[in-house]
């Protein structure tokens, strides 16, 4: 029954939701095996945009770049169960992470809050890879306390003039556009008076400086704004209403950061590491327990992904998804170090097993409980806004 459909070459842009799950899995698996650029398999560091672009374009042509977007905007409109299958297959094949800020954040944001003109201009350029996006949220003194941001935007005629500094901008050196939270009313209360802007990185006055992360990769950047002038329609939503939009966007970010993708990749790594060491049997119970936790997390993910699919706004409870994924991902990464022995001390790949790089997996799992709002901040949010335990 499931074997006769031709799944090796699913049509680009076809609606795959009607396929039974097992067929869908076979189709995805076959297509990835036939299409994925071999030289990008299981890269030990996150790829820069230029490195990832071949895979970005292949997915773009297939119409698989944006599994979660509605089909009307060029997405796949996948159900959560199929989304999970797609994540599983990509992680197990070792598909590289894309420069995905446009796909996971800007797109959903503009679909929800953008003008028709913004959608018409930006969505196709995200889907084609013409515009890679980055995020301008945190500042040196506004990290966990994001609303303390000081970057300013002042209206002058039909322009906004932006001054200030952003930091921890992932792949900031690679992006063509940045979305920026800036203070538009310096006299308003902290969360009021913030607005949300879209800024081309090649605007005069924008400078970028890369930052080396703990794994010695130039993953982050600082972005400086020095009298950066952008047109009046570069704002998303209303003036001084940026915090609401930002919070909404954080919902999408938390859903994405709460997806089982990273944990799936890490558990796969751990399983391969145990196999490489000839210890799969010794660690069978550990691996089984983590597998069950990961499958449980997927059920939890479905709870929230279902809501998005039904068009509901994600509330503060989505923070729980991110907390749980961060904890699980780091737990798996910790176990990788436990198991690796001296292989965990290597700065690069294991010489005779180049898809293994246990130390890097461990280090790359560190920031997941920090970025997008630390796990401590997320717990504050849930305690106050979900459980009603605030002061």
């Amino acid at each position: 029954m499931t074997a006769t459909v031709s799944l090796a070459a699913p049509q680009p842009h076809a609606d795959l939701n009607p396929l039974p799950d097992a067929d869908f899995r076979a189709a995805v698996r076959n297509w990835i095996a036939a299409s994925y650029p071999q030289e990008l398999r299981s890269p030990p560091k996150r790829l820069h945009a230029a490195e990832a672009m071949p895979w970005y374009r292949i997915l773009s042509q297939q119409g698989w770049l944006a599994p979660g977007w509605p089909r009307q905007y060029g997405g796949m409109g996948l159900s959560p169960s199929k989304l999970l299958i797609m994540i599983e297959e990509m992680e197990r094949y070792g598909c590289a992470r894309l420069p995905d800020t446009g796909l996971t954040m800007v797109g959903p944001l503009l679909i929800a809050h953008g003008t028709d003109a913004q959608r018409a201009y930006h969505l196709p350029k995200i889907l084609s890879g013409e515009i890679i996006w980055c995020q301008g949220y945190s500042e040196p003194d506004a990290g966990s306390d994001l609303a303390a941001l000081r970057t300013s935007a002042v209206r002058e005629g039909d322009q906004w003039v932006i001054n200030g500094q952003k930091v921890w901008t992932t792949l900031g050196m690679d992006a063509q556009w940045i979305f920026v939270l800036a203070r538009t009313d310096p006299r308003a209360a902290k969360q009021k008076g913030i607005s949300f802007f879209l800024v081309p990185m090649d605007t005069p006055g924008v400078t970028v400086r890369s930052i080396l992360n703990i794994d010695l990769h130039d993953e982050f950047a600082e972005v400086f704004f020095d009298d950066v002038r952008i047109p009046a329609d570069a704002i998303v939503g209303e003036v001084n209403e940026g915090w609401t939009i930002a919070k909404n966007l954080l919902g999408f970010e938390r859903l994405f950061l709460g997806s089982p993708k990273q944990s799936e990749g890490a558990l796969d790594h751990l399983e391969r590491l145990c196999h490489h060491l000839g210890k799969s049997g010794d660690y069978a119970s550990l691996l089984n327990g983590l597998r069950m936790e990961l499958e449980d997390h997927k059920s939890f993910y479905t709870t929230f992904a279902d809501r998005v699919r039904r068009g509901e706004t994600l509330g503060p409870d989505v923070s729980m998804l991110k907390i749980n994924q961060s904890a699980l991902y780091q737990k798996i990464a910790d176990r990788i170090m436990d198991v690796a022995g001296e292989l965990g001390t290597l700065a690069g790949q294991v010489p005779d097993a180049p898809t293994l790089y246990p130390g890097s997996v461990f280090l790359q799992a560190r920031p997941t409980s920090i970025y997008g709002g630390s796990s401590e901040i997320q717990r504050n949010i849930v305690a106050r806004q979900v459980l009603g335990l605030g002061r």
Partner: protein
Amino acid sequence: MAAVLATGEDRFEGVRLLVESAAGIAPRDGDLKTVRHLRFGRPGIDRGRWSEISAMGWLGIRLPETAGGAGLGMAEYAALAGEVGAALLPEPFIEAQLALDFMGKDAPAEALSGDRLVLPAWLDAPDGLTLAGGIAEAAGGRISGRRRFVPMAAAADAFLVVSTEACWLIDAKAAGVSLEIESALDGGHTATLILDGVEAERLSAPDAKALEAAALATASALLGLMERAFAITLDYLKTRVQFGQPIGHFQALQHKAVDLEIEIGLTRAVLRDAVETFDTGDDCRRITSRAKARAADAAMLVTRQAVQFHGAIGYTDEADIGLFLRRAMVLAPRYGSAGFHRQRYASLTEGRP
């Protein structure tokens, strides 16, 4: 707040109504006087409430209408089990249901009507979800052997003795039946049933999927129980004042409370997926094991942490929160402990999807 573990709008609404209708028998906010009253007594259940339960049509809920059941599915059964769990009812709702599920079309009308309480006796070890052998049938249909850990056995009118090859219905008062009863921590009891040449009515072999249903229903009962224990605890955190403020203002307690809410959310999500898999008719053993393991561990964590949040008062018998911990201790290992289910999951997993 009760969770409705069903997707699909029509069914969702049906389950919601069912849960609402349960509030009369199994309220989420009632006091626990009757629960306390029945503790450590024998038979330890309220036959009046048992009649109400049957009058609501809850018994045989999964049996087809042709067999005298309600023809509903696991989603509905799990929803009711969750309410019974939250209300800490001592009546053996899941056990009676298991007996009916085992018997299927053979289920006698008095069992479905609640007039005859039939309890299943199937377990032969301190842990597991595996049918045992070891019941000997002599000529003339008399059976001998033993079964362990029969919950609320003193309340039974009859036992359904279950082995791998057959079920037998026996009268609880039949000659040759003896019970070794031990008190359980929740105020109920559990018994070893010893059979020595007991007159029995032989029925068909049991459907092992009945045990999967019982395990899922127990997971749901644990979910209802932990939801209510957590709600009571949140109230306490908001009202108990120390150092001049409600203790719920302290960040360390807030963060622990969030971790419990996450555990509850995980349990609810897994159970939803498990119930859905059960109702589609697919092999549900792996996801049943996930659901039962998660529910057991989460319920133990939530209820013991709830006691901790209550401080010294939580360690007294007069505080209701302890009733939830003690019930969780009893339900957590029933139909397979978390450890058993993790092992089963591993043994059922060969390679990956």
